[in-house]
């Protein structure tokens, strides 16, 4: 599903943001991408979303390869790969329902199908009652749920999340994380960047790919049994 093969991404001549990283996240798998700030987590997610292209190596997502993809194929890929940001990135002037409808509208969903699908998505993230609320009227956790519903609007195969609980309190974090687990249980692969050691420790069944200074330093699946305590302490 997501394959990184000896991927390096440099922004200038200094130390590359990501160097020589290889891993494979399979269909339906859930993986944490962990490491301190500046370790290269966001760069990995942007590479998987092909917002960035590798300087060396290859990124493959579903049937798309960074080595061969054309610019006009990128929208197709993006519809298959949802993206959730730490700061939600909702449009302030639109309601929760409109923010989700916006994603459907700009990806060419027929008008008649938009409303029922928005209703379903809001139900899926537990916000059916807040459809008409504007982002400023919603809590952080609720805003992130709207953002997740928007990312799910195009029925992606993979969901990438960049510190989605970074701005949330403990309770909201638990709720949003549960939502990700449910989405994953329905067959969508999830790759979530986080530096929340506690979150990782609480879910030892989830694979951990750990980065440090752009290099992959630990992969719980490749290393056999996960040892969340051991690497969790280093976070």
């Amino acid at each position: 599903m997501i394959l990184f093969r000896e991927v390096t991404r440099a922004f200038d001549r200094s130390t590359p943001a990501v160097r020589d990283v290889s891993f494979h996240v399979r269909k339906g798998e859930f993986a944490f991408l962990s490491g301190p700030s500046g370790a290269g987590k966001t760069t990995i997610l942007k590479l998987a979303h092909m917002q960035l292209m590798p300087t060396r190596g290859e990124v493959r997502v579903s049937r798309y390869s960074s080595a061969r993809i054309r610019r006009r194929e990128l929208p197709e890929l993006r519809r298959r790969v949802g993206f959730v940001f730490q700061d939600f990135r909702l449009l302030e002037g639109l309601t929760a329902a409109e923010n989700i409808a916006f994603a459907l509208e700009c990806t060419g969903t027929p008008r008649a199908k938009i409303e029922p699908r928005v209703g379903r998505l809001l139900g899926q993230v537990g916000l059916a009652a807040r459809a008409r609320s504007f982002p400023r009227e919603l809590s952080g956790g609720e805003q992130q749920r709207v953002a997740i519903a928007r990312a799910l609007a195009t029925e992606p195969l993979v969901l990438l999340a960049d510190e989605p609980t970074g701005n949330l309190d403990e309770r909201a974090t638990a709720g949003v994380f549960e939502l990700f687990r449910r989405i994953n249980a329905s067959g969508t692969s999830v790759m979530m960047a986080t530096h929340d050691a506690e979150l990782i420790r609480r879910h030892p069944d989830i694979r951990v790919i750990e980065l440090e200074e752009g290099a992959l330093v630990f992969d719980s699946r490749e290393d056999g049994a996960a040892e969340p305590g051991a690497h969790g302490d280093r976070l």
Partner: protein
Amino acid sequence: MRSVREAAQGIRRAPLLSGLSITAIGLSLFIVGLFALTAHNIDEALAGVESRVEVVAFLREGTGEELAGIARAEIEGFPEVAEVRYVSKVEALYEASRELTEFSDVFSDLEVNPLPASLELAFRDGYRTPEDVERVAERLRGYDFVEEVRYGREWVDRVFALRRVAAGGALVLGGAFALGAILLIGIAVRMAILARSREIAIMQTVGATDAYIRRPFLIEGLVTGIAGGLLALGLTRLAYEIVTRSLLAMSWLPDIWIVGGILFAALLGMAAASRAVRREIRRIQAG
């Protein structure tokens, strides 16, 4: 529908800049319009006199009528030539004495007719440019029995030169204003994009195509262009009315020129917007 709504929002968001863009396009095309009006009226005047312009080939003394007849038939086969009239020495004398009545005594006292026979050529429509006339004259000079070829085209050449100056002036001045218009539209579109960069980034994230993202901005450029074109048309019409009422009667521009001008303005607006949006969208993506 969304594209149109957002294009209107873009114009409303920066009305001063949109107004400036429209004025710049309007002024650039107004200048082109003034020159077009001049060129069109020169054309009309030329068409009137051109149809009367003839080329006359004077024949050498002693050229027989038979030879002249053969040449006449041959010259009538030239693509540029509509008609050839043979004027014999006698006819020439007769016409001269009739047209120049004050010299009629001189003509009647002549013992030897000094006037040469000639071939008078009329030209087909669309073959009356200085180049056409010169080419035919050159061929006529090739005949042994042609003594001299005359045509009163020198002044027509000058009018044509004037027309070229008008066209050149329109191109240079109009072009300079058009460049200014392109830059202004570029700034207006860039501002509209900046105001919506968050939205555009989300569109790119969820998988909207570049064409979908660009569309409202292209419509904004198109509307600006058309508005500028209409402004230019209004200003040109105003100038036409003023000149016609106070100086001399002119003829108004042909419809096809007007439609062409507005289409050009629309394309100009869209091209300027397209250039700006392409660069900005890539910048947002790179950020």
